[in-house]
């Protein structure tokens, strides 16, 4: 059985209710094809994490898939506060999610620690603030303060994280899952490698030979990957460097829709439940906004230089 499969099959086989998910991205490369599939399959009680969450996390929360969120930040970027998230926290709609809050330094380091097999990692931020004082579902395990055995100074230790599954979207991967990425990384490499299983969504599946032409670009090795899904335009309305731009107009649509419960539901009905997969989604996008708009998002042609690894 190969690893190349549909996103629906990947989510069905490898994401289970109650599991802990790392979902990669940082404005770029949110794995939206997989996000929509999680919602379509009505997954429940998930714990989700990444540094700087955005519309994809907001959508999962609004759709009721999320129980817990190990968070640093969530917003809709230029469109301000994340509406579903606020409704969950402020009004319990559809239910109040539990939050454990860290920062964009501590959380990526905790994922790094998970990836590196370190039990914990010292972090220099957080101390003295209410991010220390407030503990939620991680309880006393949120962090520990110790005196450094080297010089006695106070040091915060944050625990390593080990997600059950990581879902990332990258530019290219081979059929075994060797995944290559370039451009803004966020905490994608650490989050993926901290997880027990990785689902790689990619713009294009390439040959093992192509991977071997530039192995320094690989961020996840095949042996960690359980599924490879080819989803061109798969990060839309986020962007993928070298492939397509972010879609601000669509982002506005989501912001407006998610202002109300009804609007959000209608948005899901149209863009998630109303299509059966990413192909239908892109087709619907082009039907609705026209090919010119779709084409406008495609990246300009500006390639760099190839390098050699020979001897």
């Amino acid at each position, binding site marked *: 059985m190969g690893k190349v499969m549909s996103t629906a099959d990947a989510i069905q086989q490898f994401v289970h209710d109650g599991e802990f998910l790392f979902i990669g991205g940082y404005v770029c490369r949110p794995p939206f094809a997989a996000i929509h599939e999680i919602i379509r399959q009505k997954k429940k009680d998930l714990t989700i994490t990444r*540094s700087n969450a955005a519309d994809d996390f907001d959508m999962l929360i609004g759709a009721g898939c999320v129980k817990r969120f190990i968070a640093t930040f969530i917003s809709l970027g230029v469109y301000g506060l994340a509406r579903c998230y606020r409704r969950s926290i402020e009004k319990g709609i559809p239910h109040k999610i539990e939050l454990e809050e860290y920062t*964009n*330094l501590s959380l990526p380091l905790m994922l790094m620690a998970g990836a590196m097999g370190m039990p914990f990692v010292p972090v220099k*931020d957080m101390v003295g*603030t209410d991010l220390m004082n407030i503990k939620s579902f991680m309880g006393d395990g949120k962090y520990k303060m110790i005196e450094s055995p080297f010089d006695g100074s106070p040091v915060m230790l944050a625990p390593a994280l080990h997600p059950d599954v990581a879902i990332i979207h990258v530019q290219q991967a081979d059929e075994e899952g060797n995944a290559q990425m370039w451009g*803004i990384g*966020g905490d994608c490499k650490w989050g993926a490698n901290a997880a027990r299983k990785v689902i790689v969504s990619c713009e294009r599946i390439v040959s093992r030979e192509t991977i071997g032409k530039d192995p320094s670009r690989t961020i996840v090795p095949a042996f960690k990957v359980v599924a490879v899904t080819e989803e061109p335009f798969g990060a839309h309305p986020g962007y993928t460097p070298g492939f397509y731009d972010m879609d601000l107009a669509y982002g506005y649509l989501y912001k407006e829709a998610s202002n109300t419960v009804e609007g959000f539901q209608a948005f899901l009905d149209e863009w998630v439940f109303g299509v059966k997969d990413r192909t239908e989604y892109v087709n619907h996008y082009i039907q609705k906004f026209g090919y010119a708009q779709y084409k406008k998002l495609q990246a300009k042609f*500006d390639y760099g230089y190839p390098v050699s690894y020979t001897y």
Partner: protein
Amino acid sequence: MSNHPNDYIKPELMACCGAREIRDGDIVVVGTGFPAMSANIARYTHAPKATLMQESGVFDARPARPALSVGDPCLNPGAAMIGGLTDVMGMFLQGGWVDVGFLAGSQIDKYGNINTTAIGDYEKPKSRLPGSGGANPIGALAKKVLIIALHNTRSLAEKVDFITTPGYLDGPGARERWGLPTDTGPQVIITNKAVLRFDATTKEAYLESFHPGASVDEVVKLTPWDLRVSDDVHETEPPRAEEIRVIREVIDPHRMITIYEKRGYV
């Protein structure tokens, strides 16, 4: 154009105040909006060797347009280095290399503590805000932190509802007690009315200068703590002709800065 043209808007003045805090050669970690604007004004005027980084993993980007977020597509092509969060927030910021960090917040208090988490009670917030993101580590670890704020009695506070990002915490000695690096902390609060600086002894923000059109009395009235006034309080220097030229011709030809007027920075 005179040396200090009169037709500037308040966000332009504020951006210039930020720019003037940056020295040549400084390493500046920026968000979007004011911070990027200020840092770029500095680069194009007195600090050509200042370099910028974004927490997402970008060093020395060459964006073709102002970035809308620290993960904006325009930050990728042409940057000098792109890694991930642990490169910028870990290697560069926690590593002790960042000279200047810019922060904003929904609530700022007299010690420069910043709240971007929740207004009201944390468990049952009146308004749930985005959270720390990179703010807490920047506030903890950058050598100089510049804070941008709206000057009113909601945005400024005697004590914030939630300390997301450390200023001087509960006052003198607190940062040291928690082991935060020496010689770090907030430097200045730049509002739409004034520039506040932090007293070396009390760690409280005091009034250094009021913007043209504002007055000491007005600023004191709009500040919800007993605001000390510097002995040599003065009017803030308006934007210089060269600064205005750089903003309008080089950095922000499409005048995206005007959105700050709509957000109350007038």
